[in-house]
């Protein structure tokens, strides 16, 4: 779920872009530094970015009837760490905006903040704190949490931009969370299961 182009007022768009910028710049610097030390990094990161982009093209079995696609950021955060995911997610979201008309350019900052920063960090935090208890459960929670966090942040962004005239930000948040829950909550569950199976196929767990 990405916020479409033109959807956010200019001040909101600018504020979210500013909020996302330090993380993305940090990620970009990490990429440049990494490359100076290990030249093969460029190719591996290119492959990681392509993988993340294409993962979102895999159609998941839907519970609600609408088709859903994994975001890939939870799995990406476990495999490549959050700073790199901030950068890769920016690339992926830019490509989704320009190759699929999914998301937008003025809303890129807001989408990066939810999907490229909060999502991966939430996943990574869950993964780090739970993996010693049970790796399978840690993966499920991390990946599902990445989806849920992304969805919660996106709903918050929309609620801040369009508070309900009667009940304000709170009412609006309830509305957006409710409307998008139909697709996003089942997606989080299914993507968590998918990540377990993927890592099992790869022999990691």
């Amino acid at each position, binding site marked *: *779920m990405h916020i*479409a*182009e*033109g*959807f*956010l*007022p*200019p001040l909101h768009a600018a504020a979210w872009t500013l909020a996302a910028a330090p993380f993305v710049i940090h990620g*970009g610097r990490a*990429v*440049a530094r990494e*490359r100076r030390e290990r*030249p*093969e990094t*460029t*190719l*591996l*990161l*290119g*492959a*990681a*970015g*392509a*993988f993340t*982009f*294409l*993962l979102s*093209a*895999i159609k*998941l*079995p839907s*519970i609600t009837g609408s088709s859903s696609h994994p975001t890939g950021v939870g799995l990406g955060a476990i*495999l490549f760490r959050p700073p790199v995911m901030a950068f*890769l997610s920016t*690339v992926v979201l830019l*490509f989704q*905006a*320009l*190759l*699929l*008309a999914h998301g*937008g*350019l003025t809303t890129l900052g807001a989408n990066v903040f939810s999907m490229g920063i909060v999502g991966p960090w939430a996943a990574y935090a869950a993964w780090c704190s739970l993996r010693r208890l049970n790796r399978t459960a840690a993966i499920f929670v991390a990946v599902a949490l990445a989806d849920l966090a992304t969805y919660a942040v996106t709903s918050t962004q*929309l609620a801040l931009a*369009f508070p*309900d*005239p*009667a*009940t304000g930000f709170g*009412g609006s948040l*309830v*509305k957006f969370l409710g*409307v*998008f829950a139909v697709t996003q909550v089942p997606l989080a569950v299914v993507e968590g*299961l*998918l990540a377990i*199976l*993927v890592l099992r*196929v*790869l022999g990691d767990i």
Partner: protein
Amino acid sequence: MTTGFPLDDAAWASPWRHRAVGEKLLLSGGLLAVTVSLPAWPGSVLAAATALVVLLGPARVAPGVLARVVAAPLAFIVVGALSVLVSLQWEAGPALAVTDETRRTALSLLGRGTAGTLGVLVIAATTPMVDLLGALRRLRVPEACIDVAALVYRLVLVLFATLFQMGEAQAARLGYRDRRTTLRSSAALGAGLLLRSWDRARRLEEGLAGRGYSGSLPSLDPTRRTSVPFVATSLATVGVIAVTSLVAGGW
């Protein structure tokens, strides 16, 4: 064979492909700017109409491609606008209402979202990704980041073909007949995709080593001259929309 990305195909085949990126960005960005910042009526409607005329006219994007591409973002826009249209009241329990204010906001969102999406398409359907990355390179975005992005583009296209064929081969063996098999097949697809991605990167490293690869991926960007008439027309068009919506603008 299609590549799976109709917008990308349109961009490579576009009659505007050889135009300078800057002038296309000016037009697309100008339309986005008026859409986002000026009163939605009549600004968004004018911007949307202009983008549509540009896309179907001189940029010669096939109407079928355009319709397919805008379908998904339009769904988000409609759902989002509906959420705004309905106000959540709280008087002794939850209640829903539609007020003049919510109607106006919802309509303006519908207009801005549609115009914005079409505005982005002005650049997306006329400019291959690699030209945009070249423009970012000239804007001093670090070389390493541009190289990674350019590689993501190439590998997405190479691996998409793989992903598509893998999915079709699974379907042939009834891998998607129910939820259980679908989840299992999707996982095999995701894992297979990851392995193939790594494999591609490793093989590319070896393939490029002979040509002097040492971490960076330089390539020759074509030189393109900016067209003054194009820039002037774009500025005039965006200016007219801006003035009209400022003068006649309601909300």
